C-alpha cells in the first residue's frame, strides 16, 4: 500500500498563500501528474509531500500512515530533481549507492542493487564516471537510478525533463512511462508541459494560483474541462472561445471549440469565414480564420490544405463537441 492522501493542505509565507485548500488522493501504483503554469504551487506541493517543506495546515498520509511528523528519508519516497542534484564529487556508482549506506543495507546487497538498476537503465558503462563527465541525458538517468535503488513506495519527479533538448525529452518521456509500468510504483510528477502531462498521467491534476482546478484522466480533462482556464491550458493550438449571440444560442456565456473539431467546407451550410493565415507544419496545417459570427478561429487541417479562390469558406462543427461555460467561466454540464 503506497497511496498518498492529502486533505485541506495549505502553505502560506506570511500574507501570501502558495497553496490553499489542496485535497488529493493518489492510489497505489498510480501515475499522478501535477501540471500548471509556473508559480501555480505544484513544486511546493511536491516538496511538502517529500517532507522538504512544512505545510501550514492540512493533513498528509503516505501508505496509510500519517507522514507529517516523519523526516523525508522515513516517508518511503525518492525524489528526482529538476537540476538532477547529483553529488558532483562522487562517481555515478557512489551517487547511487551513497544513500543506501545509511539504510543498513549490506555491502554486497548495495552492489547488486546498484548494478541491476544500472543494467535496467543502460548506464552500466558509466558507473565510474563523475557527473561532470556525463551528458545531460546520462545525468538524468543516474538521478533516476539513484531514486530507484532506494526501492521507494512513492517516486516524486520535479520537472525532470526540462533541462533536456526536445528530441531527448520525447524519448526520456517514453522511458519514464515504461519504468512506471515495470516498477508498478506510485509516481507523482510535476511539469508545466501539457504534452508530458497528457501522455504520462493516469491522473492529471491541473493547478493554478495554489489551487487545484481539476482532477481527472488526461482525456477526461481534455474533453470536459471544468472551466475556461483548464480548457485554454490544454490543447495545441489553443481552444477557440466564442462569446456573444452564438454562445447564447447554446444557453451559455461562452462556448469552446477545439481546433480539431472544426470542419471547412467550400460553401453551403455553417458560418461564413475567411482564411487569414495558414501555418504549415508538414504533418498538418493550422488555419487561422476570421468569421463575422464567431470571431477569430484556429482550425487543424491536413498538411495539403490550400486556399482556393478568394479564401471564403464555411465553418461547421458538431453540436455534441461544443463545450459550454457560464459567465464565471465554469463548465455547464
Amino acid at each position, binding site marked *: 500500500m503506497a497511496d498518498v492522501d492529502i486533505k485541506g493542505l495549505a502553505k502560506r509565507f506570511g500574507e501570501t498563500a502558495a497553496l490553499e485548500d489542496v485535497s488529493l488522493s493518489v492510489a497505489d501504483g498510480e501515475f499522478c501528474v501535477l501540471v500548471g503554469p509556473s508559480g501555480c504551487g505544484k513544486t511546493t506541493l511536491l516538496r511538502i509531500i*517529500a517532507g522538504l517543506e512544512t505545510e501550514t495546515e492540512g493533513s498528509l498520509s503516505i501508505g496509510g500512515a500519517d507522514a507529517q511528523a516523519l523526516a523525508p528519508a522515513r516517508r518511503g519516497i525518492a525524489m528526482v530533481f529538476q537540476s538532477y542534484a547529483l*553529488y558532483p*564529487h562522487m562517481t555515478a556508482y557512489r551517487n547511487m549507492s551513497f544513500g543506501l549506506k545509511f539504510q543498513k543495507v549490506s555491502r554486497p546487497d548495495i552492489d547488486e542493487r546498484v548494478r541491476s538498476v544500472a543494467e535496467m537503465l543502460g548506464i552500466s558503462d558509466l558507473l565510474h564516471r563523475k557527473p561532470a563527465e556525463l551528458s545531460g541525458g546520462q545525468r538524468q538517468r543516474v538521478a533516476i537510478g539513484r531514486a530507484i535503488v*532506494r526501492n521507494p513506495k512513492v517516486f516524486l519527479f520535479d520537472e525532470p525533463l526540462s533541462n533536456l533538448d526536445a528530441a531527448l525529452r520525447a524519448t526520456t518521456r517514453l522511458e519514464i512511462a515504461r519504468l512506471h509500468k515495470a516498477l508498478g510504483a506510485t509516481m507523482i510528477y510535476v511539469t508545466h508541459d501539457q504534452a508530458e502531462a497528457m501522455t504520462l498521467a493516469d491522473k492529471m491534476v491541473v493547478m493554478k494560483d495554489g489551487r487545484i482546478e481539476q482532477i481527472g484522466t488526461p482525456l477526461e480533462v481534455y474533453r470536459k474541462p471544468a472551466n475556461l482556464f483548464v480548457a485554454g491550458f490544454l490543447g495545441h493550438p489553443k481552444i477557440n472561445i466564442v462569446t456573444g449571440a452564438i454562445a447564447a444560442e447554446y444557453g451559455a456565456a461562452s462556448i469552446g471549440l477545439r481546433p480539431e473539431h472544426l470542419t471547412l467546407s467550400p460553401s453551403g451550410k455553417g458560418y461564413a469565414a475567411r482564411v487569414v493565415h495558414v501555418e504549415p507544419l508538414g504533418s498538418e496545417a493550422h488555419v487561422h480564420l476570421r468569421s463575422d459570427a464567431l470571431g477569430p478561429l484556429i482550425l487543424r487541417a491536413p498538411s495539403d490544405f490550400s486556399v482556393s479562390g478568394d479564401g471564403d469558406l464555411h465553418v461547421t462543427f458538431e453540436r455534441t463537441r461544443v463545450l459550454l461555460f457560464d459567465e464565471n467561466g465554469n463548465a455547464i454540464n
Partner: protein
Amino acid sequence: MTTRMRLWAVHVMLLVYAVLALAPVLLIAMNSFKSRKGIFRDPLALPTGETFSTVGYERVFANSDLWLWFANSLVVTVVTLAAVVVFGTMAAWALAAYRFRGRLVVGLFLALGIMVPIRLGTVAILDLMTSLGLTNTLAALILVYIAQGLPVAVFIFSEFMAQVPRDLADAARCDGVPEFRIYAHIVLPLIRPAIATVAIFVMVPIWNDLWFPLILAPGEGTRTITLGVQQFIGQYVTDWSAVLAALTLAVVPILVLYLALSRMMVRGLTEGALR
C-alpha cells in the same frame, strides 16, 4: 603568434612579480650564509668562497631553545588551523542551510568580529586568561587565535557554501543521509578550495604574530619562534649572521604548510568541484 606573445607576456609579468615579492626573503636567506664582514661589505652580493660562513646557523643551534620555539609555533598554528576549519565550516553551514532563531544575530556577531580588531580587547583578554590561570600556556594563544581567525573563516566559507546548490542537501535528505553526514560527505568536499584559502589566510598572521605571544605567553617554555628570534636579537645585537639564520629557519615550516595548502587549493579549483 598571438598565443606565443601572450604566453611570453604572462611569464614576464609573473616573473617580475615573483622577484618583487621574493627579493626580501631571498636577501635574508642569502646573507644568512655569509660572515658578518661579508654582510656589511656588500649585502646584495652572493656568498663567495671568502664570505661564505655557516657561523650564524652554528650559533643559533648552539645558543637557543630553537627547537622548542619551533614546536610551540607549530602546535599553536596547527591546532588553531584545525579548530578554525572545523568550527568555521560547521558554523558557516549552519548559517547557510538552517533557519533558526538568532541566525541573523549570530551572523552579525561574527561580522563584528571581522571589523573590530581583536587587539582592542587585549587588556580584557589578559584579565580573563589570568583568572583562568592560562597565562604562559599555549592554550591561551590557541584560544585567542581561534577567536581571531573564526569570523573571517566563517565569512569566506559562507561565500563558498552559498554556491553549493540547495538541491544537493535536499537530495541527500531524501536519500536518508543524516544531517551530519550531509555536512561531512557532501558539503565539505565541495568547499575544499575554500578550506585551503582560509587556512592560508588564517595561518600566516598567527605564525608571524608577536603581540599575543609577548603578552600572554612570554615565558621560557611557551615562546613561539617569532618571539624567540626577537629575544635573540636582543642578546646578540651585533651578530647579524645568527639573526638572519634564525629568520631563514623560521620561514621554512610556514613555506612547507603553504605549499601543501596551495597545491590542495589548485587541485580543488582545477577539478572544478562546483562547476
